[in-house]
């Protein structure tokens, strides 16, 4: 019941936040002047420019433009992307699929690595493994993804020639259907081993590059909560009962250490999402992030607006979901206060 109230309260704030964000995004894109530039070619006369402005409704007063844009975002007309040469909405699903596949793969890398290393280090507090994991977790947070990615490319792409670049081998990609938009999953559905290997092979380096920073955050959280829960009374009690240390760790300490870690995992979703911009540039990954970067460099406002809006709404929803789940998992948060 109380969780329900909490969720309801959070849900009610959501539209306000979304409207606020949309106002900021819209204002922002008009600060630099009219978004008409991307639709122009360099040899146009001022009259031709006016014609183009009219075509995209950019001759209207700003409030009208805002309402048109906001209405369009709601009804599925997200404007014309000058960079992709198509309506934003038409290109979006494929790019989203590519980006989400990358983000999920990176998430898997980060969670596996983070929980593993965090547990390993935390259980050996103040010994060498602990120090090493600490170094890892701090260096991960300080690692510029763009540099790490390039180093991986220098070694594995240029140097050893092992890793491919891009998302897929074009022929293999074309050979299967894509019902979900996630290449690896599509490969499983199509029962194509070749495509699956191709998908994983392409995913590997970018997922590591993207997941590295998040893995560091998770490692750190996991380690410290493990250290904390190892010293709690009920763990001591379990020890007193004569349970072997391994079981104490697995059954009691680690389980409870996971609660705060889950929150961190959820909150690091935004970190992953923004990291895709850089990773997609470096690994030539055909997703939303690379599209956004192109849009930024070429001044494609429609794409920038749609991307920022989508990302922040997704970010808000995920954060909400995480908070709700956290409240549910750790009743003390709600019931205790």
């Amino acid at each position, binding site marked *: 019941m109380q969780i329900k109230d909490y969720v309801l309260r959070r849900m009610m*704030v959501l539209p*306000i*936040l*979304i409207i*606020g*964000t949309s106002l*900021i*995004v819209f204002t*922002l*894109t008009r*600060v*630099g002047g009219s978004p008409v530039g991307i639709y122009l070619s360099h040899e146009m006369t001022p009259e031709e420019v006016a014609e183009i402005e009219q075509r995209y409704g950019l001759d209207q007063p700003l409030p009208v433009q805002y309402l048109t844009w906001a209405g369009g975002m709601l009804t599925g007309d997200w404007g014309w992307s000058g960079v992709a040469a198509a309506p934003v909405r038409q290109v979006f699903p494929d790019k989203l699929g590519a980006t989400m596949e990358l983000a999920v793969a990176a998430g898997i890398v980060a969670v596996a690595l983070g929980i593993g290393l965090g547990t390993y280090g935390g259980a050996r507090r103040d010994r060498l493994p602990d120090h090493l994991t*600490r*170094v890892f977790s*701090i*260096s991960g*947070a*300080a*690692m*510029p*993804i*763009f*540099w790490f990615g*390039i*180093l991986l*490319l*220098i070694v594995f*792409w*240029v140097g050893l020639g092992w890793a491919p670049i891009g998302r897929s081998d074009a022929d293999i990609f074309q050979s299967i259907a894509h019902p979900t938009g996630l290449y690896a999953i599509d490969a499983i559905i199509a029962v194509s081993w070749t495509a699956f290997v191709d998908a994983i092979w392409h995913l590997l380096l970018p997922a590591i590059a993207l997941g590295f920073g998040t893995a560091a955050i998770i490692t750190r959280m996991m380690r410290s909560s493990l250290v*904390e829960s190892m010293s709690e009374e009920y763990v001591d009690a379990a020890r007193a009962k004569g349970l072997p240390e391994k079981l104490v760790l697995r059954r009691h300490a680690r389980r409870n250490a996971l609660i705060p870690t889950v929150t961190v995992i959820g909150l690091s979703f*935004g*970190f992953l*999402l*923004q*990291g895709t*911009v*850089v990773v997609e*540039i*470096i690994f030539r990954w055909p997703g939303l992030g690379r599209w*956004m*970067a192109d*849009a*930024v*460099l070429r*001044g494609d406002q429609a794409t*920038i607006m749609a*991307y*920022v809006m989508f*990302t*922040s709404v997704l*970010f*808000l929803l995920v954060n909400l979901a995480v908070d709700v789940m956290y409240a549910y998992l750790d009743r003390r948060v709600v019931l205790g206060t």
Partner: protein
Amino acid sequence: MAVGTAPRTPAAPLAGALGTRLRRFTEIAREVLRNPTTLIGAALIVGMIGMAIFAPLLIEPNTPNPYQMPRDWGALNEPPGTPGHFLGTTQQGGDVLYGVIWGARTSLRLSIIVVSITVVIGLIVGSLAGFLGGKIDELLMRLVDVFLSIPELIFALAIAAVLGPSFGNIILALAAVFWVKYARIIRGQVIHIKQNEYVDAARVIGDSDLRIYMKDVLPNSITPVVVQATLDMGNVVLIGATLSFIGLAEAGLAEWGVLVSQGQAGISAGRWWASTFPGLMVFLWALAFNLVGDGLRDILDPRTESKR
């Protein structure tokens, strides 16, 4: 009668407070030096800030603008070890060593400007919200929430994109994103302290809100702000370099992210140096401030303190 007491009270306790603060500071410094990782971080910071400050002595500044790369159009893509170009050159004939050294100065400039601006904005917004409360608090905090609802790199990217590629615009974009945390920290502190008894006591004595603010709120907010600012000295450079890597700095700037981006174009032909060295600098810079910031948090955070 309240007027009479006012000038008398501050002198003595203030001197005392100063003394405690000084003592506390030396204590902290000693703690910092005791922890090996924090010590490494501090040493790195000293080294890199030294490099930034003494850049003109380390390598001859480019004229007229030393923040621009010197370009030798007759020596493009030279490998490290080339005479005169110890770390090699970029595809524009820029000396990588120059970029590494002056990039430290660019980064120092960037981080100090952004962190000062954001601390001040955060201080103002946070204090206003915390002190005035009510509708204004509600409004300001909703604004903070809205700013927090866009992931920071993406927000900064969008702002810098709209303003156009230049170093000044990167500063603006980062400032617009980074103030939010300070506003939250300070508002929290203000509310926390407002509820404390000694503030009530001060009120009873007849201190004005402003005096309470100067005497109690501000000094008590310093700790978390210092920790956050230390971390941000690193993060600002990290995100700033990411923006310029994407292509939002001005052309030819001696900045690490710009160099990594230029170097990226040559890696397939085996030219690894132009991106490797400047990228390493970004990493070390962020690492150093993270190490020290972390160390400071451990020392200053009363929660961890009590657990020791």
